[in-house]
């Protein structure tokens, strides 16, 4: 079955430090991959998506992610985080069947300290 693994449930980091949030997926078919961010007391917002083409995808707020087919990974990175990046981040992948449904990971809470 299709699955998404976010290995780190929490990632603490100091302001202006770089950060990487890890996401691995399992799939035997072509995938579409997404990263969403959830700020406190809000719904999820799309950060970026990979559908095809260049494996390095740039998103909003200075985030980027790299699709690595051989590693089945789609890690999210930012070279220098701000306090305002404190939020929960979800990786998601399209299900293998012909559907618009996604499977979400369990989330990574990024906490940025001053």
């Amino acid at each position, binding site marked *: 079955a299709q699955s998404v693994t976010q290995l780190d449930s929490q990632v603490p980091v100091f302001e202006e430090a770089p950060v990487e949030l890890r996401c691995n997926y399992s799939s035997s078919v072509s995938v579409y991959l997404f990263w969403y961010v959830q700020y406190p007391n*809000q*719904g999820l917002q799309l950060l970026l998506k990979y559908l095809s083409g260049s494996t390095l995808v740039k998103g909003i707020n200075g985030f980027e992610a790299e699709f690595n087919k051989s590693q089945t990974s789609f890690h999210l990175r930012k070279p220098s985080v701000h306090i305002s990046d404190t939020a929960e981040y979800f990786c998601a992948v*399209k*299900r293998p069947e012909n*559907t618009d*449904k996604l499977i979400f990971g*369990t989330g990574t809470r990024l906490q940025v300290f001053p």
Partner: protein
Amino acid sequence: DVKVTQSSRYLVKRTGEKVFLECVQDMDHENMFWYRQDPGLGLRLIYFSYDVKMKEKGDIPEGYSVSREKKERFSLILESASTNQTSMYLCASSSTGLLRGNQPQHFGDGTRLSIL
């Protein structure tokens, strides 16, 4: 900009009550989704609708039903609320792309439901 509106941010109900959660989207999207979000479990799909009056069970449909009488509105119904249904409920919508699954989902702000 896509707007997905959930009727309540916070809701408190008693066990055994019938509970309705409403969701409206303004972008003429074909697809609508209901998820529940629990700490450590991420988002789990309850029900999915790909057209008016069409619905499909998600991963955890037990204890829930849905209604989609109009394209813009998708309702989640807890037939007889129980304490284990205390959770954050998120509604989302998306358009149907030429390739299935390549369109992002747009989320409402969520309803935090407490069943006492």
